[in-house]
């Protein structure tokens, strides 16, 4: 632990002599890492964060379910129509079953869900924590000898990490079902054909891949907005800035992680 802290101080020290943007990036990276260490350390205090975590999880879970399923449904339908348009006459119809289910599970389900939730959960976390910072509620918590890490951050982060992969699985299922129904309506794809195609290309690893991806995205959707909201400065304007920064950074990180996981996880297959 001391070695890590020392290394981080070195990073800050070097950063101070770099250009301002470099200093900014290094400073943030350092503080973000400190926050991660604090979160890990706080994990033993389950008595504090577990009850609050359940409250958060129900809030964000129920609150996001509708929009997530709506988006997934449309994604399934559009994929289905596009597949039909591109395949007409050139490929056997059962291929559509494979394309719809694989693109939902591998890419659209996790990524679209995460991007939507960056706007919903990420913005909410950043705005809540930012407001608590500028109205001195975080100071008030600390003045009571209570830790903002265990009272405010851990419940939010863990709630997100539990809820987001679950929502992703629901999104996958919805997208595939709506995709199938659309294909049935527009292409006349039978259930037997659809199932044959979906099974033919399906590997159990794909579901694991989808799940791993959504865990990575859940990290981005929760940790980044929490970090940015927690470090908000300067009043209402600061809260606004924190919220937009949080959503943009979380979204960009999701796209980067998408590329990274695709390369790392699918590359080895």
């Amino acid at each position, binding site marked *: 632990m001391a070695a890590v802290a020392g290394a981080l101080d070195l990073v800050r020290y070097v950063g101070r002599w770099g250009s301002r943007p470099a200093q900014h990036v290094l400073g943030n990276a350092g503080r973000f890492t400190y926050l991660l260490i604090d979160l890990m350390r706080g994990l033993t205090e389950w*008595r504090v964060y577990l009850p609050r975590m359940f409250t958060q999880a129900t809030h964000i879970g129920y609150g996001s379910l509708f929009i997530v399923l709506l988006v997934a449904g449309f994604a399934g339908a559009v994929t289905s129509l596009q597949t039909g348009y591109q395949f007409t006459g050139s490929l056997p119809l059962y291929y559509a079953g494979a394309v719809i289910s694989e693109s939902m599970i591998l890419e659209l389900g996790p990524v679209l869900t995460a991007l939507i939730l960056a706007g919903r959960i990420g913005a909410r976390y950043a705005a*809540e924590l930012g407001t*608590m910072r500028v*109205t*001195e*509620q975080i*100071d*008030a*918590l*600390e*003045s*009571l*000898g*209570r*830790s903002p890490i265990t009272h405010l951050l851990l419940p939010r982060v863990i709630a997100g990490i539990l809820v987001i992969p679950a929502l992703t699985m629901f999104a996958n299922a919805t997208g595939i079902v709506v995709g199938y129904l659309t294909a049935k309506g527009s292409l006349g794809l039978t259930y037997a054909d659809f199932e044959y195609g979906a099974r033919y290309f399906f590997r159990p690893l794909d579901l694991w891949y989808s799940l791993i991806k959504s865990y990575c995205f859940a990290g981005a959707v929760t940790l980044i907005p929490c970090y940015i909201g927690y470090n908000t400065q300067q009043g209402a304007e600061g809260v606004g800035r924190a919220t937009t920064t949080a959503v943009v950074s979380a979204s960009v990180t999701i796209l980067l992680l998408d590329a990274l996981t695709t390369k790392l996880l699918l590359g080895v297959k």
Partner: protein
Amino acid sequence: MIQLQNISKRFLSNVVLDGVSLDVQDGETVALLGPSGVGKSVTLKMINGLLKPDSGDVIVDGLHVPKLKRHELAELRSRIGYVFQYGALFDSDPVAENIRLGITNEDQYHDEAYWKERVKECLRLVNLSADVADKYPAELSGGMKKRVGIARAIAGKPKYLLYDEPTSGLDPVNADVIDGLIERLRDELGVTSVVVSHDVRGSFRVADRVALLWQAKIRAVGTAEEILASRDTAVQQFLERDLEMSLIQAEGNQDRHGA
């Protein structure tokens, strides 16, 4: 005992405190007076470590506050109640939970019979009715929020209490209730307090000693009589202006009551 030793603090080029020293004995109540923006809140936040001085030392209960590790600071803070100038209530929790979070002993915090009783008691002490407990901070008036803030600060039975303008924004009746509470906590429980105020009269009533913060320094410290008898022009200026203000306010209140 609270000791501020030669504290300095600046924000960028804005020098807020420049060599401030002040001792508060155990069981004593000291009022910290000064014009708006002079650094009263900043001084108070140094005492429980919410802000760190650029130089100088803060000693509370024998501990050097700026040098404490995080868990040591948390432990010390659980013995220091802090009343925030603008309430700083947790607005996603109802009043009862706000006050309950002030109970710093974890076992008592989880003991339902205890905390329910304690919440009721604290509400009564700040002259709020028990049905306020289920309301959310957004549903309260400014003065009610202030009093919930005080209830939260005293809920953990702290040894030290730091009040940032506890009576500003309160009507005279409730201001008296709070002044009375501050006195009782000192007399009955031996609580050591610092009361930030710019209400000269109220602070003369509750405080054993008064300190005037003026242009980044402590300009005068002493009992009410000593301060009133001071020949320092800055002190006289501040007192005159403030006594005038409170006279005007008092007249205004009388007019309103008379009408």
